[in-house]
């Protein structure tokens, strides 16, 4: 309870501010309408109308919630109007990209830890690769790949891969190097081979680092998948919903897509966090190190 109360207060405050902002931002439109109709409008009436506008500047929270409910529960999943359908398309690209990025990141990290040439030549470029705003290249990757015939899931997943391999590679390098000299010496006294040291000491020791960076990576690959959907001409997916909403001024649709993305990100991060706690326990990581 002690931990929930402050969070609850902050969330409640955010929702309250949102309602006030919605009234404040949407009121000019209502005043304008009333003036055109040539009749006076009371503040209470403005208040009422700003909550139910068709295309508000800022939709009220309950409008977004209603739209979310409407497009997830009451529509058939296969329907193009269903948010579940669009979320699934984004999610599949996210997951594919995330898995490829994680594998690539781990492979790079293993190479870097075991070869000093790779360490010195690759590491600076891995870091430089992230100062390139890859999302800016996303449209070109999509267009170019579709012109060679690669369409659908893979181009979006490749962008997610590029975004998600970096945190995993950096975290894994740190994690694989985290065993203390004492433990490494102990392995040497056991006359353990290199692969023994790797599988029995380095890998278990790297697990907390791996899962911490996987949380970052999955959030990044969701962003990659969403941005990857923008240039395809708004066919399907949460990014397409955003773009279509912005074309037609459907603010409620934009906000509901945004919240769907946010909920998905939160779920994915929580899921990986839970998986991480379980694996860490299995690997015998001490709780205070598992943070």
């Amino acid at each position: 309870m002690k931990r929930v109360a402050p969070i609850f207060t902050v969330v409640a405050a955010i929702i309250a501010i949102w309602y006030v902002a919605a009234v404040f931002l949407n009121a000019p439109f209502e005043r304008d309408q009333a003036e055109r109709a040539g009749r006076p409008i009371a503040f209470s009436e403005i208040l009422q109308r700003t909550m139910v506008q068709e295309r508000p500047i800022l939709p009220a929270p309950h409008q977004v919630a209603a739209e979310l409910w409407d497009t997830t529960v009451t529509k058939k999943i296969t329907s193009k109007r269903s948010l579940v359908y669009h979320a699934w398309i984004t999610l599949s690209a996210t997951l594919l990209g995330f898995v490829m990025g994680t594998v690539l990141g781990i492979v790079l990290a293993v190479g870097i830890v075991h070869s000093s040439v790779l360490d010195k030549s690759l590491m600076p470029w891995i870091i430089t690769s992230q100062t390139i705003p890859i999302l800016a290249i996303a449209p070109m990757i999509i267009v170019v790949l579709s012109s060679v015939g690669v369409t659908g899931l893979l181009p979006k997943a490749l962008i997610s891969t590029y975004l998600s391999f970096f945190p995993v590679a950096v975290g894994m390098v740190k994690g694989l190097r985290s065993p203390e000299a004492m433990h490494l010496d102990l392995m040497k006294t056991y006359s353990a081979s290199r692969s023994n040291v790797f599988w029995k000491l380095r890998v278990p020791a790297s697990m907390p680092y791996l899962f911490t960076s996987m949380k970052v990576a999955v959030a990044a690959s969701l962003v990659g998948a969403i941005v990857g959907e923008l240039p395809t001409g708004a066919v399907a997916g949460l990014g397409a919903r955003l773009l279509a909403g912005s074309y037609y001024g459907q603010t409620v649709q934009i906000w509901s897509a945004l919240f769907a993305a946010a909920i998905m990100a939160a779920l994915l991060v929580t899921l990986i966090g839970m998986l991480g706690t379980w694996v860490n326990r299995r690997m015998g990581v001490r709780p205070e190190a598992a943070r």
Partner: protein
Amino acid sequence: MSGMTILIAAIVFWLAAWYANTRLASVRARTPAVANAINLAIPFLFGAALLALWEGFTRGFEVPTVLLPPPSMIWDRIVNSVPVLWADFRQTYLKAVLAGYAMGCGAGFIVAVLVDRSPFLKAGIMPVGNLISALPIIGIAPIMVMWFGFDWPSKAAVVVAMTFFPMLVNTVAGLAAAGHMERDLMRTYASDYWQTLFKLRLPAAMPFIFNALKINSTLALIGAIVAEFFGTPIVGMGFRISAEVGRMNVDMVWAEIFVAALAGSLSYGLIALIERSVTFWHPSNRNRGL
């Protein structure tokens, strides 16, 4: 030279660079200067080899330039269209990114210092802030374009929203970093809240703050460019990229990417340099140069 000879030359160069790197990596440097030079030379050679391979493959296999132009062609395009690139850079980076970055980081910092005074607020804002910094905030770009119009203020607004939360979370974490011993020492000096803040807690928080500044420098550029996909005046890096992709002028797109990468790397490097001089006391900097 025909395509195949270029390809073979590129592969030979790559092998030579690889061999040189293997030798360089095993050299034991006697002075720090030599070690530094080697540590610079290795990634440089690697990058050069990568470029040579790229050039060799695109020319050797005659890859259509629409797919992947060779680096030499991109360089030609950069040299020939400096005015356009500069105008885009000014619109996107000097206006939107810098303004948004300063406002977002500044606001995050100030809110963090204020929140830090109330444990209740801190306990509430930290989990929410952590959650929000994991969310795809970039999705608010269409909304911001709707609110603030097509020109750079809407892009700056996206940048503010993207940079605010990482800064907030990191600063709050950093302000908690000063040890109890040091805080008790400050109390024995009878120093008030502000003295403790400026002389102990803020300096101790600097590694965290610079971490946020570094994360944000990349985020800001991404935010501004992606926001331009949702509507811009006819200038800007994001606009140029989406427009030239449509016209299949891929070399121009790569030129913009080069500018973006250069701007991103330089601002990251600049922040890292400032960090090293501000947090000279931190263990990760003290061990340098040994």
